[in-house]
Structure formats: structure tokens, C-alpha cells
């Protein structure tokens, strides 16, 4: 652990070298993405195919054992990853496209559109998201497309706020004002000069939005508000709840989907936060270097 801390500290000094956390996060996401893509090749029978007794204990042929239907938990996990990640990516992209456009336009032009946007985001940031999703899903149907659209439509305000404040500062920079003075149109200024400064932030938002979407998909699945014809990690959690994996003490069925969601969310959070830090230098500047004061640390000396 001290090696981890040491390398984190040296990164802060020399900057730009990937931290162990970042490497870990990228590895986790690559692994799950590869697994999702390879699922049809590795388990051509698809999800839900019975290969043995229900709740069979993990063995060499089925490393995570079998679930309530006698299907291989690894196969379920990889097939489930396809849906979970697909929902995550599509809803995440939708969030960032909507939030990015709203944030860029309102931050760049200001005026009544900005006021309107800020009030709208105020509203969306206050109302509890999950109950709204529940109501919308219950009223408008539970097809996979609906799940994606619901999550996308209800998640963009956060992104819009971050992008707006960045666009607002970029607009004031000298080179942007010069470009305007030299006769560049609003559209050109926005796309050529403001957008590139916002792109890393959009990347960070995408990572975070993907995580959120996967989380909410699992919640909707658990409440029975999603299309059950496909499996997903959320569906696996819901199934192990409804079909007695806890009573059967089948921890090999219960644990994998939750851990998968936790790991993916942890990874998207780490990646998103680091991207954000690299974009926004203000975040990494501590007010005063207090190294001299901080040695020995207060808690340490108290011991």
C-alpha cells in the first residue's frame, strides 16, 4: 500500500503519469468489455441455457457455479454485461450529448436561455431521480429503449451545469475574443475554439454518466420495470432475490453481479475524476504547500 501512496505522490509532482488507480480502472473496463464482446463465442448457447443442476456449487468446469435455472453464472455475467454496458454507454452518451449542447449553448450565449437552463437544472437536481424514473417507466412502458431514454433524459442536467461553467470561462479567454473580433461566426467560434476546451470535460462526464446509467438500470430491473427478455447484471440481482439464492445460500450466484456493478462504477468514477483533474488545473493546486506543517501528521503524533 505504501508503494501505491508513494507512486501517487510522485505522480503529483511529475504529473501526467497514469496512477495505479487509473490503470486498474482501465483494466477492469477492458476486461468486462472484452468479456461482453466475446460472450457469443465463449457461450454460444446464450444466457439461460441449462447446463446442470440448479445452484450447483462452483467447480472446475463452471468456476462460478450454476444459478437457479442451472445456467453457468459466468455465461450469465458475460451475457448480462452486454446489456448492462450497452444501456450504460447509450444512456451515458445521450446524457452527455444533451447536457453538452445545453451547457455549451447556454454558457456561450448566456442570456435568457442560460437563465432558463439554470432554473431547469435546479429543478432536476432537486427532484429525486429514481422515483421519477419509476413513474415514467411504469407509465410509458419498459422496453430496453425506454429504459435508455428515461435514464438519458433524467441525467443530463448535471453535465449541462459543468459544461456551462467551463464554456463560460473559455468564452472570456483572449483568443476566443480575438477570433470573434476577426469576424469568426458564433458557430465557428463555438466549434473551433470553445468545444475543444470542453472535450476532456465531456469525456469525464461520459465516464460518470455510464456508471450512473448502469446503476439506474439495475434499480429499474429490481423493481420489475425493465424488459425481462434479456438478462443484465441488474436482472441477475433481481433474480437471485426473487428466486431464493439467499435461502439456498448460493453466494456464488448472489455476489458476482453486484461486485461487477461496483467494480465498473468504481472504475468509471476514478477515470472520470482523473480526467476532470487533468482538465481543470485548479483542482490539483492545493492552497499552500503545508508539508513542513504536516510532518508529523496530527493523528500520527497523537498516537
Amino acid at each position: 500500500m505504501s508503494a501505491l501512496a508513494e507512486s501517487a505522490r510522485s505522480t503529483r509532482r511529475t504529473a501526467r503519469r497514469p496512477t495505479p488507480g487509473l490503470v486498474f480502472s482501465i483494466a477492469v473496463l477492458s476486461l468486462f468489455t472484452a468479456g461482453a464482446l466475446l460472450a457469443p463465442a465463449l457461450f454460444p448457447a446464450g444466457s439461460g441455457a441449462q447446463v446442470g443442476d440448479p445452484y450447483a456449487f462452483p467447480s472446475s468446469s463452471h468456476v462460478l457455479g450454476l444459478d437457479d435455472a442451472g445456467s453457468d453464472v459466468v455465461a450469465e455475467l458475460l451475457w448480462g454485461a452486454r446489456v448492462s454496458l450497452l444501456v450504460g454507454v447509450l444512456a451515458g452518451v445521450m446524457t452527455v450529448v444533451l447536457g453538452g449542447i445545453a451547457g455549451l449553448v447556454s454558457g456561450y450565449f448566456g442570456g435568457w436561455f442560460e437563465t432558463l437552463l439554470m432554473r431547469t437544472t435546479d429543478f432536476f437536481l432537486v427532484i429525486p431521480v429514481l422515483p421519477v424514473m419509476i413513474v415514467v417507466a411504469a407509465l410509458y412502458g419498459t422496453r430496453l429503449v425506454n429504459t435508455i431514454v428515461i435514464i438519458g433524459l433524467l441525467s443530463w442536467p448535471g453535465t449541462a451545469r459543468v459544461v456551462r461553467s467551463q464554456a463560460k470561462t473559455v468564452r472570456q479567454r483572449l483568443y476566443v475574443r480575438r477570433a470573434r473580433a476577426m469576424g469568426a461566426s458564433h458557430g465557428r467560434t463555438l466549434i473551433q475554439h470553445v468545444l475543444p476546451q470542453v472535450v476532456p470535460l465531456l469525456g469525464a462526464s461520459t465516464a460518470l454518466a455510464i456508471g450512473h446509467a448502469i446503476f439506474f438500470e439495475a434499480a429499474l430491473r429490481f423493481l420489475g420495470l425493465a424488459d425481462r427478455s434479456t438478462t443484465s447484471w441488474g436482472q441477475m440481482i433481481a433474480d437471485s432475490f426473487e428466486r431464493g439464492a439467499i435461502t439456498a445460500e448460493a453466494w456464488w450466484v448472489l455476489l458476482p453481479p453486484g461486485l461487477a456493478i461496483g467494480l465498473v462504477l468504481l472504475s468509471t468514477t476514478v477515470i472520470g475524476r482523473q480526467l476532470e483533474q487533468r482538465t481543470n488545473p485548479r483542482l490539483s493546486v492545493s492552497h499552500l504547500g503545508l508539508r513542513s506543517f504536516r510532518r508529523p501528521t496530527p493523528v500520527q503524533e497523537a498516537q
Partner: protein
Amino acid sequence: MGALRTIGRRLVGAVLLIWLAVTFDFFLFRLAPGNPVDQMSRIPQGSAELQAQLNREFGLDQPMLVQYLRYLEQLSQGNLGVSFVNRRPVRENLVDALLNTLPLVGLGLLVAIALGIGLGVLAGAYRGRSVDHGAVTLATFMYSLPPQWVGMVLLFLFSGLLPTGGMTDQFLIDPTPAQKLLDVGRHLLLPALTLGLVMFGQYTLIMRSSMVETLSDDYVLTARAKGFRPRYVLRRHALRNALLPTVTLIGLSVGAMVGGAILIEVVFSWPGVGRTIYDSIVARDYPMMQGAFLVFTVSVVLFNLLADATYSLLDPRVRRAGAGR
């Protein structure tokens, strides 16, 4: 004076937000696909005469604006409609449910605050060391876990020791008040712990960064220069000021907590508002769904208001800034 004016302004904002939420609630249900009479009467292929009659009865033949005004009027009198399922007024059902949700959220919040602030202070004081990295990773990971799954894992771990669902033991005959309290408490333990475990992460993160910032402030350096012991400075100077942003965040996180509470109440069959909204989905009980949604929204707005007010009472700087704005 400044504090009062700030709070007054927030109050107006909160009333506006609640009105918006109420309006949103109305149109969300009114604009849903399908004929509401179909859904309400649960007679999908009812005859044209029956539909027309139901439409008249429910006032659905009136213009949207008239319907909306009538809805506001009824709401202002506390009328939320009647549940399709048990024919009781929605309001009565919701008051019962809310009284059950409050202890769950209250105890869960206490667990989350204790864990979150404790770990956050530790991480902030040990900034950049392995304790810090460990605490931040743990907090982020726990916050990433689906609440329903954390609840199930706790159920799995404690299934023999603690009750696995519901709020009371059905087989407890004629319990004394003390027995009853103990029984509910035992049932409350696991759901509240689940809520605490999935919520504390964000408090840890905000507490940590706020500690780090406060520890690098001039007055902390001054206090150290005066010769106070580091632990004293940490507690008296740094911790007190670092708590402020956390107070606001706790208010803001009530929205997320509501989402967690829904899932957790379903896992543990806890008869609260979250469980109510779930049951109303299953039964297609639209008035209940609408009412529960309203309760959630209004309580989140109120908690935000409360957090803002606490914040400006605690920190004179905010008060002044608020008055100047």
C-alpha cells in the same frame, strides 16, 4: 437580519420548486400514453358509453387547464385522491408509510454520518498516505454498490441472527411496549445499516477534501505556530470548519437517499413510502403512485431548504455573501 433575508429568499425558492414539482407530477400522469379511464377502470375494452360516463365522472372531459386548477385546489386541501387498492384516502396510506420510513432513514443517516465523517477526517489528516488512499477507495467502492444488493448480502450474512423482513414479529403475542420497541428495533437494524453503508461514501469524500482544504488555511498554521497540540488544532480549528460543506451535502443527498430507501424497503419488506411506491407500481395504483412521488419530491425540497438554512446559520460568511447577492 441577513440570515433572515437569506432564509426568506430560500423559502420563496422552495415554494416555487414545490409548485413546479406538483405541476410536473400532474402532467407526467396526464400525458401518459393510453386512456386514463382504461387504466383507472381496469376495463381495457369498456363500451363507449361507459368510457364517456367515466370521463364525465372524473372530469376528464374538461379542458386540461380546468383539470389542472381542480387538481391544485384539491391538493391545497390535502386531498390526494383515493387508493385503487384499499379504497382508503391516499393521504392516510402515505402518512402511515412515512412514519415507518422516518426511523429507517433517520438511523441510516446516523450510520452514514458517523462512518462518513470519521473516515473522511482520518483520510484528510493522513492526506497522501496509504490510509488516505484506502479510505478514498473504500468510500468510492461502497458508494458504487447497488443498495438492493448490499441489502441482500447483509441478509445472507445475518439471516440466522436478525429478522429478514417486515417491521414486526407476527408471532409476538401481546407484547409490552418495551418488547415491541425492541422488536421493531431488531427489524430496523439491517435496513438502516444497508442505507448507512451505501450512503457514507460521498460524505467521506466531501469531508476529506474539506479537511484537506481547511488544514491548509492560514488560521490552522497560526494555531500551530501558537503551540497548540496538532490533535487539538485538528479538532477545534480544522474539524469544525470542515464540517460546513458536509452539512450542505447531507441535505442535498436526501434525494439519493430516497432512491436507496425505495430499493432497501423492497428488499426488507419494510412498509414505508418506498415500499408503497413499489406496491403501487405492481398494482397499477396510480393515485398512490402520484401521491408517493409527491411526498418524495416535497421532502427532498424541504431537506434542501433545511440544509441551506442550517448552513447560513452556522457560517456567518455565507450570511453576508447571501445578503450581498
